[in-house]
């Protein structure tokens, strides 16, 4: 489904991604792990088409289509979803309105009729319960005054509503307490399906106890330096990133943020 070949990207003239190679098939869950500053968010943003990042080399294709030729919104409509590490607020725009606009943009792209307000309300209420968000959040401004955990649940709710082909979850576990982690993980597991791929970006392995990945990759210094199965994550938990010869100040005093 997703194929990344020798991807180089830089931000403000500084090269961050230095030759990423990755193949993700439909139905698979891949975990991208790595210390802070290794380029995980950069990779996520580049896949979603953030223009703040410049792609200086390499290829990305989604189901054979060249992603690098597509605008952010086109990629989204083709099925790429990014759950943000730091979701931004849009004051005064209700979550409900925002989500319905998004869902209708996707529907229009697929040649389907738009969903009306009443129908969408019903659907959104169901999905909000799935991530344990009070439906009252639907009426509030997008992420406006949400706690860290509420923002993360809101991101997963959006993924569940938009039903993407490729979901990229950037540190969706950070800042969550044990209960919230369970809710979010259940949400992500509900997303798992044969025709969908999930890319889970995380610093810590604890999320992977709830969402068992098919493949684990370690990103360091802008390159994938090691790939393996589930056991690689466990090994990292036991031995830290130092085991792979990577310096990581954060792992020493790991608190789960």
């Amino acid at each position: 489904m997703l194929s990344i070949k020798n991807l180089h990207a830089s931000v403000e003239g500084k090269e961050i991604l230095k030759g990423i190679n990755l193949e993700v098939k439909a139905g698979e869950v891949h975990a991208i792990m790595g210390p802070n500053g290794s380029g995980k968010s950069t990779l996520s943003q580049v896949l979603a088409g953030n223009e703040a990042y410049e792609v200086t080399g390499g290829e990305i294709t989604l189901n054979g289509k060249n992603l690098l030729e597509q605008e952010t919104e086109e990629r989204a409509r083709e099925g790429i979803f990014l759950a943000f590490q730091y979701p931004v607020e849009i004051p005064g725009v209700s979550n409900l309105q925002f989500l319905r606009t998004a869902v209708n943009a996707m529907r229009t792209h697929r040649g389907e009729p738009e969903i009306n307000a009443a129908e969408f309300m019903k659907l959104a209420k169901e999905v909000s319960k799935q991530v344990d968000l009070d439906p009252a959040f639907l009426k509030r401004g997008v992420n406006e005054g949400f706690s860290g955990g509420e923002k993360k649940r809101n991101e997963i709710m959006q993924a569940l509503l938009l039903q993407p082909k490729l979901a990229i979850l950037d540190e969706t576990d950070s800042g969550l307490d044990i209960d919230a982690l369970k809710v979010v993980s259940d949400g992500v597991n509900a997303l798992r399906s044969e025709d969908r791929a999930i890319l889970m970006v995380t610093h810590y392995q604890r999320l992977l106890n709830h969402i068992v990945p098919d493949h684990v990759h370690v990103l360091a210094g802008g390159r994938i330096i090691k790939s393996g199965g589930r056991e690689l994550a466990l090994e990292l938990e036991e031995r830290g990133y130092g085991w792979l010869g990577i310096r990581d100040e954060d792992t020493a005093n790991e608190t789960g943020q």
Partner: protein
Amino acid sequence: MATTDQEVNELIKKGYEHGFVTEIEADTFEPGLNEDVIARLSQIKGEPEWMLEWRLKAYRRWLEMDEPDWAHVGYPKIDYNAISYYSAPKRKEDMPQSLDEVDPELLKTYEKLGIPLHEREKLAGVAVDAVFDSVSVATTFKEPLAKAGVVFCSISEAIRDYPELVQKYLGSVVPQGDNFFAALNSAVFSDGTFVYVPKGVRCPMELSTYFRINAANTGQFERTLIIAEDSSYVSYLEGCTAPMRDENQLHAAVVELVALDDAQIKYSTVQNWYPGDENGKGGIYNFVTKRGACIGRNSKISWTQVETGSAVTWKYPSCVLRGENSVGEFYSVALTNNFQQADTGTKMVHLGKNTRSTIISKGISAGKSSNAYRGLVKFGPGAEGARNFTQCDSLLIGDRCAAHTFPYIESKNKSAIVEHEATTSKVSDEQMFLCRQRGIDPEQAVSMIVNGFCKEVFKELPMEFAVEAGKLLEVSLEGSVG
């Protein structure tokens, strides 16, 4: 809101009745302003002697005044002798004969606004109906209003039919010599709206008017007077549009509101005068004086405005809070794009005890436009326990536009309390990226973000206007992304 054909025709006939058939058919005055022009205008309108005297007094005042230059706007000097001060409906053969002859850009705008086809024809000046410049305001629903005792008519009719009321209140809130443009308007106002709500009456419907400037090189000077007697209520809406023209056109209106004991007036405006093209060519100069007097105890006046049009706007709807416990409100959205300039805000003058005012101003600048908020909150010595709350937010789109805030506070009473909050924000790249990542078009994203920013003001608008206002923003923001 609808101006029916029949009513339009009736209005024309009224003109005929007063015996100036040829004048009206011969459309527009030669450009220029002098006492003869004013006398001719007054004569065409069949006005009584006192009205002409009043106009001439204002004109003489105006001659001695200087055009204000303190606003944060710049425009070439206006030649007041190059403007025509009266334009009646054109003859049908001079108008476009069908929509095919109308500027397609203009039609696109109407279409986007969801204006029905027959209305579009009217707005575009197609010869199916009369279109009004100086001759104004076809009013709807006269019958149910008459039953309730509410008078809703053109100010010309009011001068004829309710001379005592007009003489008592015209110029009582905005005196002739209040400012340069008010003096000009007092001398040459061509028409406008008159509303009178008797004691204890709640006006049974929203009153609405569409104003429109059509003829080229014509100034529009409408005059509105609304009087709400004790314990009455009225909500009035005005919509404004103008066609696209390369020359600038002058619009200098005066609106006066009078609220007596326990009375409430709600005045809403959606203004979309032509703003000029994307290079800053053409557009309306909008120099307007709007003021309400809360004369009575517990009276209330609310101004709500959504302003997206005009090349240059100079406008400060104000409240004079004289009655004890009276309330003034100002809710405003002012959007500028391309080369538009707006200097707008409000004045809240607290004179009575325990008077309260609220100001919510949302300024949006895009393109190379400039948007200034200018507000004055004033407390007189008698304004014991008076309070004001001001919230003034600016939103910038892109990095070539500007927003300015000029808040002034004058207090002669120590017990008065003012709270002021101001913010400036940008439509951020992160917000845009979030929207686009969810599949939303950049233009739609900006419009959604801007609508969110304006929510507190939109909720003050009557329902159907709120929808229209949202669409207007969308149209006005076109081309501001990318």
